[in-house]
């Protein structure tokens, strides 16, 4: 891995050297082009509970680095060409390791910019270290609202905040079946899911729904029997909650095995992941919020309508390249990783420098659209860096005409690829 990047860098240098002597450089100004390594550091959960989603995110980042390298680097106005290099460690999905490793990335590996680990708890831990050291960090996979309301100056969030994860699902549910009255909320007790529920519960109540079960489970829970018994006893019409991939998957599976008869089930994070299909029939009808889906169509036209520039590849190009490189479809976590890279790239180009202050100014001003959706950050000091433009979509696992289970976008109505259905 490291060998390859070094080799690539050498080839790049060689190419630059050749370019410098024989033909005029890409820069039109006639200035000499200088190639510089841009070291981007992050940790990934190669192992541990978050490993599936985190690997998807890392793959997204890698694809972005590939694309930039293929395009000849990030070209700044002054003629500098930045060749991104990844410096990454396995954080084992543990917060204390995240803090130790981000400290190491900043102090020992001297990274230029940081991307975030996956999942809010880990992002939060990393954010503290990058703030302490004044490093700019673009976060993907950290949707927690609270994190972005702590007066940070250097952190920028690509994801739609957690508070919006399930409110749309509630809208969808009531649209689908206005007779739904009783809802059970069972969620992971981590910062992300707690944020989600903190917004979803009052929202549900404001819509006249009655919350009949409201319980949290610890991260790493594998036995949902006690919760399912509570749910069964309360006989709700709908169940919302969940947390991350492993627990969400297990919860869905056990709900199915225990024949819980709620008409509508929406879970966080797990449903949009392709591996959710592993639980077979149990996946059917499960709804989940997603930052992005392959069917999502954010295009140059949409950007024009919204009055912002379109930046980066199209969704189709991204999906094709991703499948070619990793032989697997991307998930929203992949898109988030790629989008984080794109965001950094655009800010560097806009700033024309790697100076953190200039990059931050550029990020503060940014408002643009990518295949992943629109990106704009809050500049209010209290919520600085929080994502304020990106929108969620909702997917549901449905059987196609071939009888195979697949995700379809079912909400918002204008973006849907199939009609939502109630559980049977």
């Amino acid at each position, binding site marked *: 891995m490291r060998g390859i990047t070094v080799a690539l860098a050498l080839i790049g240098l060689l190419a630059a050297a050749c370019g410098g002597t024989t033909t005029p450089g890409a820069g039109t100004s006639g200035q000499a082009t200088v190639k510089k390594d841009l070291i981007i550091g992050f940790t990934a959960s190669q192992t541990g509970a978050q490993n599936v989603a985190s690997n998807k995110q890392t793959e997204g980042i890698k694809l972005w680095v590939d694309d930039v390298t293929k395009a000849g680097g990030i070209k700044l106005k002054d003629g500098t060409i930045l060749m991104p290099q990844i410096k990454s460690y396995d954080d084992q999905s543990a917060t204390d390791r995240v803090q130790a490793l981000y400290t190491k990335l900043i102090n020992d590996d001297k990274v230029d910019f940081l991307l975030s680990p996956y999942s809010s708890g880990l992002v939060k831990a990393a954010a503290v270290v990058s703030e302490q050291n004044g490093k700019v960090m673009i976060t993907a996979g950290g949707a927690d609202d609270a994190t972005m309301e702590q007066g940070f100056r250097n952190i920028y969030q690509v994801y739609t905040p957690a508070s919006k994860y399930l409110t749309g699902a509630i809208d969808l549910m009531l649209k689908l079946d206005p007779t739904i009255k009783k809802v059970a909320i069972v969620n992971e007790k981590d910062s992300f899911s707690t944020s989600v529920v903190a917004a979803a519960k009052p929202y549900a109540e404001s819509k006249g729904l009655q919350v009949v079960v409201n319980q949290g489970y610890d991260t790493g829970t594998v036995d949902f029997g*006690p919760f399912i018994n*509570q749910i069964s006893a309360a006989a709700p019409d709908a169940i919302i909650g969940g947390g991350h991939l492993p627990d969400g998957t297990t919860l869905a599976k056990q709900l199915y*095995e225990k024949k819980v008869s709620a008409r509508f089930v929406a879970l966080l994070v797990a449903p949009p992941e392709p591996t959710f299909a592993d639980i077979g029939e149990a996946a059917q009808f499960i709804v989940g919020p997603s930052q992005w889906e392959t069917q999502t169509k954010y295009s140059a036209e949409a950007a024009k309508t919204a009055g912002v520039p379109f930046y980066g590849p199209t969704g189709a190009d991204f999906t094709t390249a991703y499948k070619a490189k990793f032989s697997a479809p991307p998930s929203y976590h992949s898109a988030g990783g790629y989008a984080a890279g794109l965001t950094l790239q655009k800010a560097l180009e806009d700033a024309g420098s790697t100076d953190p202050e200039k990059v931050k100014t550029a990020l503060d001003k940014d408002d643009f659209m990518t295949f992943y959706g629109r990106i704009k950050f809050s500049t209010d000091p209290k919520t600085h860096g929080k994502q304020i433009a990106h929108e969620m979509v909702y997917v549901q696992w449905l059987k196609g005409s071939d009888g195979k289970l697949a995700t379809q976008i079912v909400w918002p109505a204008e973006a849907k690829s199939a009609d939502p259905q109630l559980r049977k």
Partner: protein
Amino acid sequence: MSVDALVPSAIDGLMLGFVYGLAAMGLTLIFGVMRVINLSHGPVIALGMFVVYVLFTGAGVNPYLGLIAAAGLGILFGVAIYFVAVDRIINAPELTTLLATYSVNLMIVGVATSVFTTTPRAVDISLGSVGGSGVTILGTHAVAVAIAIAGAALLYAILFRTRIGKSIRAVANNRAAAELMGIDSRRVLALSFGIGTSLAMTSGALLSTLFSFTPLSGATYEVKSFVIVVLGGLGNPTGALVGGIVLGLLEGVSTVFIPVSWVPVLEYVIFIAILLVRPTGLLGARA
């Protein structure tokens, strides 16, 4: 909360209780025979899970056959742990044996996380379910209870019906006297460690058919085993089985009255209270 959940919660808890009890019997047997609190208990449980996992995903071996392999390996592994880490210091103060078995814990966890990482694994097996009208019992749970009961019965048959089992009880009761009777206590101690480990690995194997797991999962069940063992009296296998059932029931039933996440608090408070008030356990210590 809802009282409608009482019956299914109690049944779920009870069923898990048997599996917990089986693991705790392993821990308490080792303590009863040699006064060693085996801090490698948790990782050994996890090892049982991974024996089943490796055989299942690697060679397609039925998990219940894998369980037999785990039980057998458990004996060998336990005997090995005894001779490597415990034999030399069997008469040393508690701290020494606590640390020695803890060092085994670290080694197992270290190797297992290197090989399997901490990514959750599962043995995907479904035996359908029975019941309805609020109470659904999964086939895997029912089989786990049956095997746990069979395991406990087998242990009892060994301890009370065979000469070697009686020798184990004799050594537990009075090692010096057993030596005078012609019993080679060192062999008996090693074998007891083997049986204790085998019980832990068997219960791990059962748990692997119920829930997903990592090499660190053993820790949860280890602490549960401690609670159970203290509940039933250190060194008392019957107590461990009863303690397991009590803990399982408590876990199930208490969820009806308090939020599920408070259940462990309740367990630990009971654990400490029993240690302080009646360290010999509610059933008293009897080997």
